[in-house]
């Protein structure tokens, strides 16, 4: 008999008790109560390791995350990270504001928050909880439901540092605001962090947020993020999440979005790293006329596993959603796409479309794609498409017949497969960086 490790729920409870005593002491009581309630919920729920009959976790075994005792607080890792590391991991332009977090802790020295229109708040969440408690309390944990989701509960139980972005009514923030969550480990440490982001955009405003998750190569760590986005009436929010963690990293995020009347939200989710990745994206159209574009791109190799669960809840009439997820899989990697579209009773004229396409570069890679529609209204338009395919060998030959060597041809065709997702990145400098990163990664695979 091999020894069976049990799941580590109680270790997190002990860690929280210690943090409450030593670190979180000066927080307002409501924040301490919130953490306590969330921890209690997490203890009840436990990690969702049971997969039989559990549609949500049918294709993803969370056991490897649940059974490891990660360190909630380790040695002073800030000393391991310098401005140069940060720069190498940063996306976009240097002049844009950037908040930097190392293993979950905000590092002011590495961050730069500047040139924002007056009234715009970009704060460390800990500071916001203390300085603008009423404002934070009004939104925090109201959108990401910790009652039903163990990972959201676990994240909420450790709410401390994080990003709080608040854009008042009628403010157009043209420059993207960047968040960088960096994971690093020393020696045999396996740190866990719970990145927390709260983005609140008022009425008729505009914001772009680039949320980056990176880490030292080969490091084993667990990041369990929760992002809440509140898009006010008539506002426009572009949200980019780019994950480039190590191939040994565990990465789980829950992103919960609420859309006001006639608002627009776009999310582009890019996964290029991680050993086991699970992204839950949940968008609720809370008022009429709102629309969202949810695109995704995943490049996986080796034994990487990336699971995207996207739920769009069309609660109100005249709301629109577009989803386009594309994956390139090599080695023995695996991807899961589970897209649910809910159309509530009375939500007439909903227009929803969902597409997931995968390019399998190896016979041993596997892509599971599962669309689900829950439509409780007649007068709607819903469509979906899913495909899994291999490289078009005719196209490879066509390119070679024009003098292009085979490896370059395969690289170009692989890259071309995801070009529409890359093209959907509205910000030009981010788009060209992502384009280069994807190109580099693909050519690396092809040339091997």
């Amino acid at each position: 008999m091999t020894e069976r490790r049990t799941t580590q729920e109680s270790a997190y409870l002990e860690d929280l008790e210690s943090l409450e005593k030593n670190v979180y002491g000066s927080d307002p009581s409501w924040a301490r109560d919130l953490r306590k309630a969330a921890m209690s919920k997490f203890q009840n729920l436990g990690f969702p390791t049971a997969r039989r009959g559990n549609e949500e976790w049918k294709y993803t075994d969370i056991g490897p995350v649940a059974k490891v005792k990660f360190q909630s607080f380790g040695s002073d890792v800030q000393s391991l990270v310098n401005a140069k590391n940060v720069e190498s991991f940063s996306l976009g332009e240097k002049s844009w504001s950037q908040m930097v977090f190392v293993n979950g802790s905000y590092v002011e020295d590495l961050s730069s928050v500047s040139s924002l229109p007056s009234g715009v708040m970009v704060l460390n969440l800990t500071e916001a909880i203390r300085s603008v408690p009423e404002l934070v309390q009004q939104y925090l944990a109201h959108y990401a439901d910790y009652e039903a989701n163990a990972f959201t509960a676990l994240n909420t139980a450790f709410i401390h540092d994080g990003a709080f972005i608040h854009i008042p009514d009628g403010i157009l923030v043209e420059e993207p605001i960047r968040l960088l969550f960096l994971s690093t480990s020393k020696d045999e440490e396996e740190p866990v962090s719970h990145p927390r982001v709260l983005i609140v955009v008022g009425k008729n405003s505009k914001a772009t947020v680039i949320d980056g998750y990176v880490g030292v190569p080969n490091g084993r760590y667990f990041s369990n993020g929760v992002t809440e986005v509140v898009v006010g009436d008539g506002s426009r929010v572009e949200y980019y999440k780019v994950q480039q963690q190590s191939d040994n990293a565990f990465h789980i995020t829950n992103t919960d979005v609420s859309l006001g009347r006639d608002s627009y939200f776009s999310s582009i989710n890019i996964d290029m790293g991680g050993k086991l990745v699970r992204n839950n994206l949940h968008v609720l159209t809370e008022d009429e006329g709102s629309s969202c574009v949810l695109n995704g791109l995943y490049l996986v190799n080796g034994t990487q596993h990336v699971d995207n669960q996207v739920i769009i809840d069309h609660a109100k009439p005249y709301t629109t959603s577009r989803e386009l997820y594309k994956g390139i899989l090599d080695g023995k990697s695996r991807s899961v796409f589970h897209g649910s579209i809910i159309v509530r009773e009375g939500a007439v004229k909903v227009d929803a479309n969902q597409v997931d396409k995968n390019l399998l570069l190896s016979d041993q890679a596997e892509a599971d794609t599962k669309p689900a529609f829950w439509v409780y209204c007649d007068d709607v338009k819903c469509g979906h498409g899913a495909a899994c395919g291999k490289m078009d060998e005719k196209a490879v030959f066509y390119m070679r017949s024009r003098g292009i060597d085979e490896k370059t041809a395969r690289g170009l065709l692989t890259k071309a497969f995801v070009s529409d997702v890359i093209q959907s990145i509205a910000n030009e400098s981010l788009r060209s960086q992502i384009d280069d990163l994807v190109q580099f990664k693909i050519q690396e695979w092809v040339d091997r």
Partner: protein
Amino acid sequence: MLEIKDLHASIGGVEILKGVNLLVNPGEVHAIMGPNGSGKSTLANVLSGNPSYTATSGQILFEGKDLLSMLPENRARAGLFLCFQHPTEVPGVRLDHFMRAGFNSIQKSNGLAEMDVLKFDKFLNEKVGIVEMDRNLTKRSVNEGFSGGEKKRNEILQMAIFDPKLSILDEPDSGLDVDALRIVAEGINYLRSPEKSVILVTHYQRILNYIVPDKVHIFMHGRIVKSGGKDLASEIESQGYDHLENLDESLQSSL
């Protein structure tokens, strides 16, 4: 230019070419005519190095070099061009980018200067007129959503861009109406020169009203059964391929 000696080739284990012999000199236009399934497209594909086809025996010399041992990309770089019967769609790759990548790799391997985007753009502007092609088409994905005629014109445009020594045109006339056929044929004629050779594979005689060949070969059951001058094409037009069946049988029994 090109010499094919007793070429045998198969696809999926089935022998299609059963001993093809052909000599093409510089400046010559050879028409290869034959009924459907005779193997004439297979010959075009074997010449260009399509990996789906296997040459099982025989030899092909291209300017004295052993063509069968060369990779498809190296054949292109050596000056061989296949105009595809059914050009492939390549979603996500812009036609102008694709052509520049091919053009530059050919230039590079021949020790010639590569062109940057601006220079190539200008070069392309000069060439699109040859096939009366809309310049905007070159900014779209390769062949994606192109009509049959646009695809064929795109092939001739590429022939103009790559300026090959030997062009193999695999049914450039199929699926074209009378106007499109004229444009494609005029494009091919425009590109003729005393140094360049053309192998024109076709089912019908009609394109030969525009492009006058030096030699006509009748292809049946995987080999050339009859060769002659341009009049041979008119003979096929009036009498069809059937009357040559006997010829093919007598040829077979003589082997």
